[in-house]
């Protein structure tokens, strides 16, 4: 068998062959169940132990940034849906905020509450999906179904609000494209009630399970310094102890009115990433509860905007905290209806960058665990 190829794959340093063992290269992806899409990892293995990982990107590179230059700002919103489709409302929001900053558009009070509530629901939904796939990657297939079951209820809310299940295209500069229906608040309340029960059940099924704990604790350790230097963000960075959350430290919208905690991990291992995400779900529920109490029941949901939005020459930057971390939109404009250059800063791009650093020295199975807890969305990386 020709398992040990003479040629070293791209990205690996030249190795000095050891006389005792032979290392071989395993290609994971682009079609592989663990890579959450079309990420391709070339793994250097010594038996079962990972000696190095080189990710290959671009299998879903869809030239969104090039397309953005020939679409108007409002048309661009539907492309942001397709970046990180699991936090598409947040992506929409980020572009809208950048446009609002540049083109001087305000948002009414009720519109802001709608935005926050939808975004937090989206975070819950995204984390539920992560929990589901996390279970699946570790072999607990039932977790996958339970997580999706809960997620489906939030998807129902979205469908009720904007008519789509995944690519919403809901927010517009100045608010959102339609008001929430009357059933919105009762439905959110029902979901929050169900979530409380579900989170306990999840702890029973996965979180407290000894096998999960043994497989996650001490695995894929990311230090705080590495996390910062690589530009990691979101739950991945917070599990490593980086105390930064855009919602709290650079509050956008009306996030400064709410009382919520930013969960932090101690060790930066896979289990910390797990607990941080679970805790984030609870914090999102807290924000939603406050929103339900304080949201004005009357009032405009959006402000009037021009049909053609133009941003004066210059640049405009906005960032939000998506379910995966810091998502930024950088618009360079030339006073035309279409952006001159539109750059999205995707959180996954930096988060996946650390894979070699954290998976080295562990087993192949741990590589899967690490990937599952990094929770990458590949189209967001490739854009």
């Amino acid at each position, binding site marked *: 068998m020709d398992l040990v190829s003479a040629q070293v794959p791209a990205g690996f340093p030249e190795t000095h062959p050891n006389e005792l063992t032979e290392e071989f290269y395993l290609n994971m992806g682009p079609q592989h169940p663990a890579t959450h899409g079309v990420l391709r990892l070339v793994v250097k293995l010594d038996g079962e132990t990972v000696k190095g990982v080189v990710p290959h990107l671009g299998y879903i590179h869809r030239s969104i940034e090039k397309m953005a230059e020939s679409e108007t700002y409002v048309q661009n919103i539907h492309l942001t849906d397709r970046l990180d489709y699991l936090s598409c409302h947040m992506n929409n929001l980020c572009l809208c905020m950048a446009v609002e900053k540049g083109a001087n558009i305000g948002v009414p009070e009720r519109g802001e509450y709608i935005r926050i509530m939808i975004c937090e629901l989206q975070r819950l939904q995204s984390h539920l999906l992560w929990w589901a796939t996390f279970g699946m*990657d570790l*072999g607990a297939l*039932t977790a996958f*179904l339970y997580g999706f079951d809960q997620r489906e209820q939030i998807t129902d809310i979205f469908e009720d609000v904007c008519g789509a299940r995944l690519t919403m295209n809901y927010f517009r500069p100045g608010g959102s494209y339609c008001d929430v229906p009357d059933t919105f608040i009762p439905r959110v309340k029902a979901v929050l009630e169900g979530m409380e029960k579900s989170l306990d059940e999840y702890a029973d*099924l*996965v979180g407290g399970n000894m*096998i999960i704990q043994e497989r996650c604790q001490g695995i894929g350790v990311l230090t705080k310094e590495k996390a910062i230097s690589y530009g990691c963000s979101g739950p991945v960075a917070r599990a490593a102890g980086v105390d930064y959350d855009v919602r709290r430290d650079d509050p956008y919208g009306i996030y400064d009115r709410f009382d919520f905690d930013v969960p932090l991990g101690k060790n930066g291992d896979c289990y910390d990433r797990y607990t941080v995400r679970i805790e984030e779900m609870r914090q999102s529920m807290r924000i939603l509860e406050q929103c339900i109490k304080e949201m004005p029941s009357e009032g405009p949901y959006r402000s009037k905007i021009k049909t053609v939005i133009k941003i004066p020459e210059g640049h405009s930057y906005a960032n939000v905290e998506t379910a995966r971390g810091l998502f930024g939109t950088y618009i360079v404009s030339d006073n035309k209806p279409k952006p001159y250059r539109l750059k999205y800063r995707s959180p996954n791009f930096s988060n996946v960058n650390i894979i070699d650093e954290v998976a080295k020295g562990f087993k192949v199975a*741990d590589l899967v665990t690490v990937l599952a807890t990094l929770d990458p969305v590949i189209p967001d990386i490739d854009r």
Partner: protein
Amino acid sequence: MSFFGTIWDGVGEMFDAIFNGDWSKENQIGATVRGWCGENETLADWINAGISLATLAAIASLSAMVLVYFERKVSGHMQRRLGPMRTGPHGIFQTLADGIKLFFKEGFRPKSADFFTYYLAPFIPMMGSFMILAVIPFDQHLQVANPELGIIYVAAVAGLAGFGLIIGAWGSNNKYSLLSGMRSGAQMISYEVSLLLAILLIVLVSGHTNLQEIIKTQEGGIFNWWIFKLPVLGLISFVFFIITTNAELNRTPFDLSEAESELGAGFHTEYSGICFSMFFLAEYVNMLIAASLATTLFLGGWHAPHPGLDYPGLGWLWFGAKTSCIIFLYFWFRWTFPRLRIDQMMDFEWRFLLPASMVSLLLAGVFMSMGWYIGD
């Protein structure tokens, strides 16, 4: 007795049993055939052997089909959904459809795979399963062969399945398959030790290696089954037996060789169509065998839970019921647990299971010499 010696003796005994009509002598069907053939005993033997082999094949394929269907249904209901619904009423023909489809599917061999090993591999686990099925005592007289060293024969042949996986993994020339084959090889060899110790415990306390004799020692109600007859220790070694067979069967939490999210499809990555279905079939037949063995060794075989319910000729019903319960246990494990990592699995075997089963074996000796039994 050397390892291979054990196998050959067992095989020899099985052939003896089949061709000498061991099965037919005590069985009603066998007797009827004998009556028809009159004095021509050779013919009767051949017919009986044919019937028994056909029965085995039927049991193997039917049980696999039913088990796959139930697995999909049980998993469905554990996961808040329904499972197969549209192929026949409640999807009962689902696995039949799968089987027919797989049979008519194109089968091909990767160019770089080794012809001989690639095509040999799927037959080995299947063969092993058939050979063990021959000695499973479904009822007092419903057993194809009843070798004196039955349990040792079972233990010896059970090891064959692992060879199939390793050979197939190696022969298909795929890195994922290779990793999976190595994993399953390590797993099978390690867990076989504990499995044998658990079996040995029963052999020790019952004093028999013949499966029928082991069952006969458990006569007389539920508290005479070895799981309860040995206070606490029986239960513990039953748990050990379930764990080790679970590992032997490559099922969650020990399904490392088929770890979908890590290794794609594992050792059968390169197999398609009928070859793949052979692996699939063997997996489920092996599950039936493991559950039957657990029933035989720990749950009183074909005996009813109460001596009053022990009607002659209905033993196979009791046997089936007990076996189904254990199979449900396997389903339940599979759809609840995540899988272990290779080093954790090894740790669990060599650091916990092996010492613990050795201690329990020692304790069993103590129990036996002190006569600490419940029941008769």
